């Protein structure tokens, strides 16, 4: 088994299986907070209620979650390093490729989570009342 890769570009940031989780988890938290906020608000305020308070709450949580996903993306980027010169197959038997793979997959998941979070926030911007 080879351990590591020659050269000084091996960064200290380690990837683990958990590196994959933060961004989609943030998506899930955002989704649940949006849904529960709106559902509880509408259940208690009635179908005619104006959604403005919910819209503001969702805007705040969306910005916070997007910032979190962005931070997770930046972390994944540091693990991976965006080495455009090499094909991102990361299929060598080395600690380096293991790390690059995890960083790359985590980075892609951050992208997906970012877009999916924006998707979920959109209805709050478009719908006016609980009806």
């Amino acid at each position, binding site marked *: 088994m080879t351990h590591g890769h020659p050269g000084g570009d091996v960064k200290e940031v380690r990837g683990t299986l958990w590196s994959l989780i933060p961004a989609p988890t943030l*998506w899930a938290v955002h989704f649940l907070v949006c849904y529960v906020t709106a559902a509880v608000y509408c259940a208690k305020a009635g179908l005619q209620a104006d959604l403005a308070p919910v819209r503001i709450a969702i805007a705040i949580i969306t910005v916070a979650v997007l910032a979190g996903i962005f931070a997770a993306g930046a972390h994944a980027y540091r693990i991976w390093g965006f080495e455009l010169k090499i094909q991102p197959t990361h299929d060598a038997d080395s600690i380096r490729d*293991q790390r690059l*793979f995890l960083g790359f997959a985590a980075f892609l998941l951050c992208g997906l989570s970012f877009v999916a979070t924006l998707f979920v926030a959109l209805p709050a911007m478009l719908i006016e009342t609980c009806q």
Partner: protein
Amino acid sequence: MNRPLDDAEDRERRNQQEERLRKVWAAPRGWRYWSAVNNSEVGLWYTGASLAFMLFAGVLALLVRAQLAVPDNDFLSADTYNQAYTLHGTAMMFLFAVPIFEAVAILLLPQMMSSRDLPFPRLSAFGFWCFIIGGVFVCGSIFFDAAPTGGWFMYPPLTTDTDQSGIGADIWLLGLSFIEIASIAAAVELIVGVLKCRPPGMRINLMPLYAWYVLVVGAMILFAFPPLIAGDLLFELERAFDWPFFDPSRGGDPILWQHLFWIFGHPEVYIVFLPSIALAAMIVPTFAQRPIYGYSWIVLAAVGTGFISFGLWVHHMYTTGLPAISLGFFSAASEAVVIPTGVQLFALIATLLLGQVSLSVPLLYVAGALAIFIFGGLTGVMVAIVPFDWQAHDSYFVVAHLHYTLIGGMFFPLLAGVYYFYPIATGKSLSYRLGVVGFWTMFAGFNATFLPMHLTGLLGMPRRVFTYPADLGWDWLNLFSSVSAAVFAVGVLIVMWDIFRPKGHQPYSERNPWNAGTLEWVARMPPESWGARCVPLIESRYPLWEQPDFVRKVDEGRFYLPDAEEEKRETLITTTLAAEVVQCLRIPGPSFLPMLAAIGIGGSFILATFHWWIAAALSGAAGVAFILRWLWTGTAMIPEKPEKDIGLGATAPLYQSGSNSVGWWAMFITMLADLTAFSGLVFGYFYFWTVHGAFPPVGSAEPDRFWLVAAAVGYAAAWALTLLSVRANANGSAYAACASLVAGIALALGGTAALVFAPSATGMDPTVHAYPAIVWVLILWTGIHAAAGVLMQAYVIARTAVGLCTAIYDADVRNVALYWHFMALTAAVTIAVIGLFPEVSR
């Protein structure tokens, strides 16, 4: 190592190794064959049984189509029709689509990782026996005119009304709850298998994509199935004991069931889809003769789909009157899930484009699957949009859509897998001609059946009607669908004949017939029972293509564990990321205990259906006794030496405990699922809060605060004492460890008594209103878990007393301590919710 390979002495040594391995791993003979627990046997039974249930459910579908062929038909009565379509959906989803994933994974995953078996073979066997008992019970009911009639999703209030729904609903609830437990058992086995049983060197970035999918789907099962188990519990309590969770006249809400069902039901669609795409991801590179394109992208897509699929459940509930904004969130997530799904399909297509494609039967099925699934996906995008869904809801358009996704996304890829992997499972090949003829018959029959249904649905035909009047414009469409369904069935029969026809005279398949690159194809023909001649050192995603002399080295036993010197079944346990060896795991061999345990536990569920409570309790107790015996005789066994030589100059410990051991991980993962089910119940409590103006309702009795505090103190002390016993045991003081566990048992029992007394003292009656009912169900859940915790504490005391749990070999006590962490959390949440929330909400 450097001696010439043809050295006679070397050859003789290898033969002896092979003889020992063969003897150790041989399946039992005669009637004892059914005590086998090895993945190659259990996986085969599991697959065969799932296919049999599929055929059964297929026959029901044909009955349904026969009834609908012409208007005003009286081929089936309304009631028989209801039983047929309910059981068709139920069996296809619960007895075929999900179990076949587990079956195929149990069969193939160890091969793909050159692991001799999964870490808990008896658990696999237990899961299989649970599955077959529950499945036969549920399906058999139709022969007694007692099958469920309420649709595969069992919506109340129709199904909570015992006059209208009869015993069928109980059979559905209890039979399937039992099978869901088996599914969770399989998920635990498979997750630990993927994380800990990979061969040395198979880093996380070299793992076959199939293993990635198994990991994701296993995790999804842990979070998707438990809410349904929680729902089943509420449902059965309402049916059997009149606790009104879904009865609006007493504060319940039928929509709560829909939430719990679909929190399970929508992820389930992906639970059946992802493993099938995983098969395609193994097949496509072989026939493109190149590595998969975009490995990381597929991992992204699998993990991403796993998450987002949990945000879709309300798209089955668009017409229940939820606020538009709620529907909007779920509609948005339903559109977002298209992105990762599409990524997977594009990666497969790109691999084919970049490779040298040779056409073959498995690839033909993959191609057909992609065509059908993409069509179903496109109508999925349509029904994910709320206004369109309001038009199409509950019409045949949805029937067409779901069959396109499931048959394209699950059935065809599965058959691709069957044609591809058949030689590994049986040593024989399937027929090219039957495969091709079967494919085109099914492909034509399927599309001719379901394509017109889109139109039938748009013309207004509702689902689940047993007949319809003539001249509504549905006549010829239905007739066409019914005739085509028969064509589809002929195609299925051709393929099933190919699978099950006797092949005694047929020569064995050649080795690695498709020239694949992945590890499972190192298998010899005919296959050997040992699973892997030795456990190789992996350096590549496609070792058969890329590692020189790989097959020869494996055959000569030149890697790890080439022998079974002590004549015990062994496999290697490695670290999660880099796959470095941490243990040589001894795994238990054939036993009837898993089967007996399944009969006992299954019996308790079946007897409970008929409300024979005492017999059910006795049967359950027998099941628990068999499980304890199985644990006592087959787990955490103290080895005769601390470590052993595993070949290549390496040694590995024979025993691990705590988070280094597979048992600890199994406990952890099981308890995650358990915690999810508990969350489903807590969700129920807060759901009732949202639907009531005041919750707890004004003037209703509340649990007595004093007894709640007493329960909290009792459980906290029991938890602390369990942790203390781990410390005492590690310090070599077995006496102190046992004493602290005895005190822990006393306090846990005291805490449970106090918890039960809290609502009893104030006269809370669970049949009066949903509020006392949900409080009682949380207490019931906590009490049952405390009882299990006490049983485990007693087990550890017994193990310590006879010297099976010691200061060094302490897996038992550490696993029980882990359980008690979760138990403490469960108790804390229960007491906080029922005790503190009423104070806050006032």
